[in-house]
């Protein structure tokens, strides 16, 4: 944590608790840092505040009405209430309105367990919506094999529009129409590829409900069924933190934890979707030795013996510098260290390099 100069320190009273913050933070930021739960649907720390969903409303002494905490700057001496009967009533009606046009297919929805709408409805004990009216239907968009759009579940929070614009700089989505038809969509409702989509899946990563999901992960495992393993991406040199989701020994999806690693929740197409190779049938699964011109399967014991015998023979007959090794920037530090150690200490040559130059 960086140190905060005294002049930047502010103190608020939130739900009768004294809470410290820094100037420049929003009321929501201060609440979250103090572990005070304020429900949100349109908030993502990667995005500029928008105040669209009206769930993070709070009461602040001296301010009229119910300001949204996500877009209200915290100031010294502020007195904030996050829980009251009025607030609960307001949040209930927001959720009931959203549910009036939200397909409740939670039984088979991939976002079940990770859905912010499901969580807030559960928390408020909302079992049905008293509002009746038109509903959006699911339609098949020809978006390819990676991203699934389902407008029957869209709550028009705008996070997909904002992340594509503010973070990705691609502007694939915008809001179309007015009233009931007010929805995030591509220009003229075209397929994602035709709208200049880079298939980074950032929109999927920010969607709080099941309107945008990863097709590769469909019906493969929901949040409570999967093991989550955090590691470092193996593609380019940026080294993003990736959380893989694993079920029955197979990867079923990937995401990035927010506010960690160099990528802070962001990923590109390769990082988010480039893991299928690990289970590909082409994988080498047994050592192979060439016999009569053909590569044939053998045991590890024999394969290692053949390699050691030949490297030693050539080293001894022709000198260590007739042996050379190429290592890989795909391998770990530990493996690269041991590779050059093997060439230098066991063979006696500096003929070791890798693909840094290519």
């Amino acid at each position, binding site marked *: 944590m960086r140190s905060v100069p005294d002049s930047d320190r502010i103190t608020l009273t939130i739900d009768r608790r004294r809470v410290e913050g820094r100037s420049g933070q929003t009321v929501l930021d201060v609440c979250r840092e103090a572990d005070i739960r304020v429900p949100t649907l349109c908030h993502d720390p990667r995005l500029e505040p928008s105040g669209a969903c009206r769930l993070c409303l709070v009461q602040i002494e001296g301010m009229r009405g119910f300001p949204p905490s996500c877009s209200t700057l915290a100031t010294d001496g502020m007195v904030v209430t996050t829980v009251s009967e009025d607030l609960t009533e307001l949040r209930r009606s927001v959720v009931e309105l959203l549910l009036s046009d939200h397909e409740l297919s939670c039984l088979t929805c991939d976002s079940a367990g990770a859905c912010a709408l499901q969580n807030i409805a559960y928390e408020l004990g909302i079992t049905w919506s008293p509002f009746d009216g038109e509903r959006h239907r699911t339609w098949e968009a020809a978006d390819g094999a990676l991203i699934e759009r389902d407008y029957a579940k869209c709550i028009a929070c705008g996070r997909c529009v904002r992340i594509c614009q503010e973070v990705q700089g691609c502007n694939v989505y915008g809001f179309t129409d007015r009233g009931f038809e007010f929805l995030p969509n591509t220009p003229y409702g075209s397929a994602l590829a035709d709208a200049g989509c880079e298939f980074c899946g950032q929109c999927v990563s920010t969607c709080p409900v099941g309107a945008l999901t990863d097709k590769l992960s469909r019906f493969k495992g929901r949040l409570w069924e999967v093991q989550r393993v955090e590691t470092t991406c193996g593609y380019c*040199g*940026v080294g993003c933190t990736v959380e893989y989701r694993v079920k029955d020994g197979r990867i079923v999806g990937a995401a990035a934890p927010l506010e960690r690693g160099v990528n802070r929740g962001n990923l590109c197409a390769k990082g988010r979707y480039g893991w299928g190779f690990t289970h590909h049938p082409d994988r080498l699964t047994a050592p192979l030795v060439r016999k009569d011109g053909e590569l044939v399967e053998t045991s590890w014991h024999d394969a290692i013996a053949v390699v050691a015998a030949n490297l030693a023979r050539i080293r001894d007959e022709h000198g260590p510098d*007739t042996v*050379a090794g190429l290592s890989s920037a795909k391998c770990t530090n530990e*493996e690269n260290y041991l590779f050059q150690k093997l060439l230098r200490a066991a063979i006696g040559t500096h003929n070791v*390099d890798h693909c840094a130059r290519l």
Partner: protein
Amino acid sequence: MTGLVASFGSGAMTNSIADIGLADVILVVGSNTTEAHPIVGIELKQAARRGARVIVVDPRRIRLVDHAETWLRVAPGTNVALVNAMMRVILDEGLADEAFITERTEGFEELASHLRSIDLEEASLTTGVPVDTIREAAIAYASAERASIVYSMGVTQHASGTGQVRAMANLAMLTGNVGRPGTGVNPLRGQNNVQGACDLACLPNCLPGYQSVTDRGALDRFCDYWETGAYLSEEPGLTVVEMMDAAATGKVKAMYIMGENPVISDPDQAHVRAAMDALDFLVVQDIFPTETTAYADVVLPAASYLEKEGTFTNTERRVQRVRRVVEPPGEALTDLEILGRLAEALGQRWKYTGPSDVMTEIAAVTPQYAGITYERLEREDGLQWPCPDESHPGTPVLHTEGFPRGKGVFAVVEHIPPPELPDGEYPFVMTTGRQLWNFHSETMTGRSAGLADLNPQNRVEIGPKDAERLGACQGDLLEVSSRRGTIRAAAHIVDDIAPGVVFVPFHFADSPANALTSGAHLDPFSKIPGLKVTAVNVRRVAEA
């Protein structure tokens, strides 16, 4: 890397990824950032959104140009001419940081007198960038409170790559843009762990931590530590391209290739194939059968990075944990396990209990990694070297006080035209590069469902006028040939590529750009091949 070592004494990204966002002006040279390093691309786009001035120097109108203030469409291989011209402007305008030059650098007088001989009109002719544009970019960079340079293979993969890197370092030092947040000279590394593979000496001229093999004392220390009876010479070994030459002529007889596919990724494919063929013994360790395993006497099945424990070091020198997500398939073993078995069979007495134990040894022999342990990596969000002891927090910005070699050195760098220029027979310049949805030789991305379908085929990017002259329409099949080979791919006509230049990605085994490139023109210092400039001929062979 070689260039930055000469200028600063250390060859890594000077600043951090997060720190790019603090710059007022960002000069992006030879880096298709949004495709090759998309998350750094986000950093640049967001910086532009906040008002930072992004200046792109590239022969192609890459996607980042949409977010940039200016695009300098340089002719391939002319970055030095451009940077020298920019420095001339900076001197003329009195924008050099004299305090920084006096206190932190040496060699300025020689540079200054060279710069005074630079003719802007001539530089404009060489680079294809108008004088006024050069002047504006130079003034923008030099007048910024914090200016950062970001570059990649478009700078290094030239026969004059080391000179180009030194030119970048010159520019930064001339304006005092080193050693502070939001500044620096920042090479983006292409592969996930190139930085680590270099740090830990999979290099023919270095021992771990860039200790030189020409240093007898260092060699003796390592031999003692490793308890090896082997005698290690003070002569550097062979680089990858030199290895291929030596294999082809029989000077190298055995090769051990771990996780590389040189038949696709190295220049001059026919030559590499001949080299592989000529070897007495070849062992290849990989996760898939590749064009290179086809030549092997033994193929060892390895675990992928998703199936092992360890660490990677990213482009900003951050050492981060790699964790086993799933088990390796069949009998595949991690490279670490395989190396251990092989060492034992070769009579070595390695007694590592696992990757964390290897890191303990790395920390003991590598000064930059001395304070790094698995326990700390679990607790902290990675650690940026140099991290000299266990209480050191790591180093986000290099050279804040001084340079590892004391003072930074200016180098007089002259523009050297690429060795293979277009002529009557091969009238086009081909430049190569990466694409967003593909990675290197496609062994991984080409086998990942969904991703593999996005860009499955090669293409030749060509400007509308050149296409018209060849009678080629969008999608027509083109044949591209150089002195070394011929490939075919569909024409992809784009508006903003310079006339006489074609771009071919190097990912595709069925249409390999590296069948055309040359391994003969190495940078004399870094031994990097000049992959970015190849003279080629292009003709239309069939309709779309």
